[in-house]
């Protein structure tokens, strides 16, 4: 009979409508920003620079080798190397970035900078509420905006950060032994 197909479809709609009051599975809406869906641990957004200890300048792991700047597909990283050196986490004098800018309006969150970095000095952040009122350089993240403590890194990616710490400790131990 003509019209039965339409009625069958209506029944499905009705079941979904009524079901949305009783079943978790059918009610998926989250009232952002009052409610928030939890972010998965692996979530990645834009890069940041973790530093050890308290001081963002002394503890910064970046040695301004510029590998990330070279490998970045959309070329959103800009680094100026320092003239002087500062000790790194094992006490070896290293250069540091005098300027480290990431234009996050260009960044496409691909994580290639994290993968190519040999010093575990750049990691992915989880902050996504980054809308700005200004039009031009408000989304240009400078070194002071990018440097975030290792404790912060532990709060956003606990498993990954623990691995990184273990790797760094092992490297430091291996360096110290022969000396």
């Amino acid at each position, binding site marked *: 009979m003509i019209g039965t*197909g339409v009625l069958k479809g209506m029944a499905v709609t009705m079941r979904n409508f009524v079901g949305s009051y009783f079943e978790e599975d059918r009610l*998926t809406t989250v009232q952002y920003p009052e409610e928030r869906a939890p972010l998965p641990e*692996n979530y990645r957004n834009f890069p940041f620079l973790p530093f050890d200890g308290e001081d963002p300048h002394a503890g910064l792991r970046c040695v301004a080798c510029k590998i990330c700047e070279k*490998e970045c597909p959309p070329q959103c990283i800009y680094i100026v190397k320092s003239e002087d050196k500062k000790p790194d986490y094992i006490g070896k004098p290293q250069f540091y970035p005098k300027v480290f800018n990431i234009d996050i309006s260009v960044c496409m969150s*691909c*994580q290639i900078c994290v993968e190519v970095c040999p010093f575990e000095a750049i990691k992915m952040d989880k902050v996504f509420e980054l809308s700005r009122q200004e039009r031009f350089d408000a989304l240009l993240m400078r070194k002071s905006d990018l440097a975030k403590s290792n404790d912060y890194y532990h709060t956003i990616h606990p498993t990954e950060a623990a691995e990184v710490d273990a790797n760094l400790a092992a490297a430091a131990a291996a360096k110290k032994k022969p000396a």
Partner: protein
Amino acid sequence: MSVGFHELAEAPPPMTSRLDGELLEISMGPQHPSTHGVFRMNVALDGETVVKLKPVFGYLHRNHEKIGETTSYLGSMPYTDRLDYFCSMTNNWAYALSVEKLAGIEVPERAEYLRVVLAELTRLQNHTSLLGFLLSDMGAWGTPLMYAFREREKILDLFESLSGSRMMCDYMRFGGCRVDAGPDWMERARKVVDAYPRFLDEFEKLVVSNEILIARTQEIGKLSAELAINAGITGPMLRASGVNYDLRKVDGYGFYPRFKFRVPLGDHGDCYDRLMMRALEMRESLDILKQAFEQIQPGPVMNPKVKIRAFKPPIGEAYGRIEGPKGELGFYLISDGGARPYRYRVRPPSFINLTVLEDMCLGHTVADVMVILGSIDIVMGEVDR
């Protein structure tokens, strides 16, 4: 005798109107809710019948292939996500496959299984959202699309918790995958797959026997098998015309020969067949996923010999192709031994499937054009590159 596809396109327009009929030319798009992106069609109408249709595209052109020649091999990987932004996992796989062919890289077993799992999940979510979009093109605003997106979101949540991003996954690497999927991820994926048939049954009940849908899709936009083969159509669209050609069977790339699955075939090659083709393929994808969850073993997911920095494949050329959700997705690479490809070419399925749009639309009404376009399953990011 084969039908050339220009002969049909240049057939003289029939003037059926008894009034002094002048053809009406209208420009549909580029800003049109049913054109699936910035796609424009210059349509010549006789009354309501389409007598000529000229697709205009390039609004989303962003130099993808040229950028591929100026960035490193790895640097092109995130750009492939943006080709067909519904299926970034299969795009990644196709690109990784061609680079692996070029450089002769082995992929660990677990990574191959993970790739199959992710490709089939991608196929599921692509076909699901396509069904929603197609129905919304037909005037079923809202409901089917929302149901489809509700289910798609579950798969995108899986992608997000594995790769870190819902759509721009950037997950595969040359010689494996970036991170391993833990046991809890596998358990969640298994749950999603087990719950999926319920949605498919419901969706089929919602639309398949609907008289309006049948009237709108059956015998609309017929594509003959000869024309489909001559125009190089691939994917569900070719199979809806009755041609048994699935790269998962033909090429047997990845671990697909290890899985038992059937290739659904259409009979009429009309919009209804193309729609049902997607629904049937989803069932087969679920079968493949269930087998993959049983067969997958723990192990490494990355070939440790592959260099991340300064990756330079030997001189040569390679063409890697996979059966993407939309058809044959291929990447053609020429290497001159440097860090960047000498030539980087994409064979996009939705662009080539779009070439027969005029042949399918001639003689149908304007309202049918939207249905036919929706049944092709295009994504403008891939058409324009």
